[in-house]
C-alpha cells in the first residue's frame, strides 16, 4: 500500500478508474454499440438493430469466419508441431550454437508482417514453387508469423520443466520415444496449449501479410473488415469485428479450461 490517507486513496482510485474506463472501456463499449447502430446522427445511435449481425452470420461474412478459423487452426497446429520439435531439439544443444539457433527461431517475430507477405509474393510467384493465388500462401504467411510465438512458449515451458523426471524414467529403462510420449509431452501440455492459443489469437487478428497475399476466395475476417469499413459500411464492419473478438476469446477460454479439466480427471 503506497497511499495511506483515506482521501488520497479515494482520489487515486477515482483517477485510475476513470483512466481505465476512458482508455480501455470506452473503445470496447463504443464498438459494441456501433455494431447494433441503426442510425447514428447525433452523439449516440438513435435506434438499434440486429441487422448487422444477421447479415454477418450469413453469406460473405460467414465465409470470412470460416476462412479465419481454418487458417488460424491449421497455421497454429503446424507452428506448434514445428516449434515443439525445434524446442526439444535445441534442449540438447549447448553453448553459442544454441543461442544462435534460438535467435534464428525467434527472428520471424521481429520482421514486419507486410514484409513477410511481400517476400512470399516475390518468392512464390515464380518457379520452382507457385503458390500465388492459392490458399496455401495465406497459410504459409500465418505459419511464419506465429512460428516464433509457438516456439517461444514451448521453449519457456521446457526451461521450467528441468530434466529430473525424464532422467528418472530413463534410469528405469524407458526408451527415448516412450519417455517423450509418456513423460515429456504430458508435462508440457499446459505450455503446448498456451503456445497454440497465442498463435491462434495472433492468426485471427493478422492483417498485414494476409492483405498482401490473399486470393479472392479466401478473405479472412480482418481483410473483410477493412474492405467493409473502406467502403463506408462501418456498422457492419463493427459487427464483424465483435464476432472476430468473440470467436478469438471463446477459443482462448476453451483452451485455457482444458488443463484444469485434465487435472481434475487425474
Amino acid at each position, binding site marked *: *500500500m*503506497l497511499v495511506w490517507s483515506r482521501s*488520497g486513496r479515494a482520489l487515486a482510485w477515482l483517477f*485510475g478508474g476513470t*483512466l*481505465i474506463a476512458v*482508455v*480501455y472501456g*470506452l*473503445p*470496447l463499449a*463504443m464498438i459494441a*454499440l456501433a455494431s447494433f447502430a441503426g442510425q447514428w446522427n*447525433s*452523439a449516440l445511435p438513435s435506434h438499434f438493430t440486429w441487422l448487422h449481425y444477421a447479415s454477418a452470420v450469413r453469406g460473405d461474412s460467414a465465409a470470412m469466419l470460416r476462412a479465419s478459423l481454418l487458417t488460424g487452426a491449421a497455421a497454429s497446429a503446424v507452428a506448434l508441431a*514445428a516449434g515443439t*520439435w525445434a524446442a526439444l*531439439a*535445441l534442449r*540438447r*544443444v*549447448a553453448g553459442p550454437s544454441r543461442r544462435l*539457433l534460438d*535467435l534464428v*527461431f525467434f*527472428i520471424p517475430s*521481429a*520482421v*514486419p508482417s*507486410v*514484409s*513477410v507477405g*511481400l*517476400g*512470399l509474393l*516475390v*518468392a*512464390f510467384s515464380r518457379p520452382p514453387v507457385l503458390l500465388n493465388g492459392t490458399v496455401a500462401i495465406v497459410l504459409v504467411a500465418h505459419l*511464419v508469423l506465429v*512460428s*516464433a*510465438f509457438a516456439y*517461444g512458449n514451448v521453449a519457456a515451458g521446457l526451461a521450467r520443466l528441468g*530434466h529430473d523426471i*525424464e532422467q528418472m*524414467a*530413463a534410469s528405469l529403462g524407458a526408451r527415448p520415444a516412450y*519417455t*517423450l510420449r509418456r513423460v515429456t509431452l504430458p508435462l508440457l501440455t499446459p505450455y503446448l496449449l498456451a503456445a497454440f492459443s497465442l498463435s491462434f489469437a495472433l492468426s*485471427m*487478428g493478422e492483417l498485414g501479410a494476409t*492483405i*498482401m497475399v490473399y486470393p479472392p476466395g479466401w478473405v479472412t475476417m480482418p481483410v473483410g*473488415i477493412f474492405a467493409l469499413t*473502406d467502403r463506408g459500411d462501418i456498422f457492419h464492419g*463493427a459487427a464483424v*469485428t465483435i464476432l*472476430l473478438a468473440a470467436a*478469438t476469446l471463446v477459443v*482462448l477460454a476453451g483452451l485455457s479450461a482444458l488443463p484444469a479439466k485434465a487435472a481434475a480427471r487425474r
Partner: protein
Amino acid sequence: MAAAPASAAGPLLAVPPLLLLAATFFYPLALILHRSLAGAGGLSLAHYAVILGSALFRSALVNTVAIAAAASAGCLLLGLVLALLIAFVPFPGVRLLARVIDTFIALPTFLVALSFTFIYGSAGLLNASLMSVFHLGLPPLDFLYSRWGVILAEITVYTPFVLRPLLASFSLIEAAQIEIASSLGAGAWRIIRQVILPAALPALLAGGSLCLLLTTNEFGIVLFIGAKGVTTLPLLIYDKAIQEFDYTAACVIAVVNVGLSLGLYSLYRFALARVGGAGAGLV
C-alpha cells in the same frame, strides 16, 4: 538418451524445423534483398538511389520513427501509471481489470483504430457532443486523422506489453520494504522515485524496446485510420506492391524496414537479457 542435457545429435535434430523456416521465411527475405539490388547488368544500388531520395520515402521514414517514439513513450507513461495503481494502491476488482487490459494483447490491433472512429471521428461521440453543447456547425476536433490518431491508438494497444513485465517486477518488491520506507516518513513520490522505479528499470527497458519494435512494424492501425499524409514504411510497402504493382520499389523499402526492425529487435533482446525471468511471457 532422451534426457541427456546436451548431445552431438542436437543440432542435427533441429534440421527439419530449420528447413521449414528457411523455405518459408529466409528464402523469401533473401529474394526481397536480391530483387532490391537487381540492375541491368548484375547487382546495383540504382533503385536505392532513386527511392531513398524520394520525398515519399523520407516522409514515411520520418512518420514511422516519430510515431514509434511518441507511442512508445506514451506506453511507458500509461503503463507505469496503471502498474503503480494496480500493484500499490489496489482497489476491489483491480485484478479483474488488469486481466481485461491483458486480453487486449489477444485482440486485433485495428479494433481500437475502428472504435476510435466512433469516439473521436468527425461524426463520433466526442465531436457530436461538443457540437450540440456549444452549437457548432463543424466538428471541432480532427486530431484522429493525423499522426496523433495513430499514436493514441497505438498507446492503447501496446500499453499491455509494458504493463505485463512491470507488474511482474513490482510483484518482486517486498511490501515490507515499502511499509518501512513509509513508516520512516518517506512520502509516496519519494518511495516511487527511490524504491520502485530503480527496481522497475529493467522491465521498463524491456517493455519500452518491445513497444518500439511493435509500433515500428504496426500496419493495421495506420491502414484503418487512413489519414492522408500519415504513411509509414509498412503502409508504403503495401501501397507500392499492391496498388502500384511496383515490387522493386516495395522490396527496397522492405529492406530498410526489416533492417530497422532487426536493429530494434536486438535492442529488445539486450534489454530482455537484463530483465531475466521477469520478462517471461513475452517473445
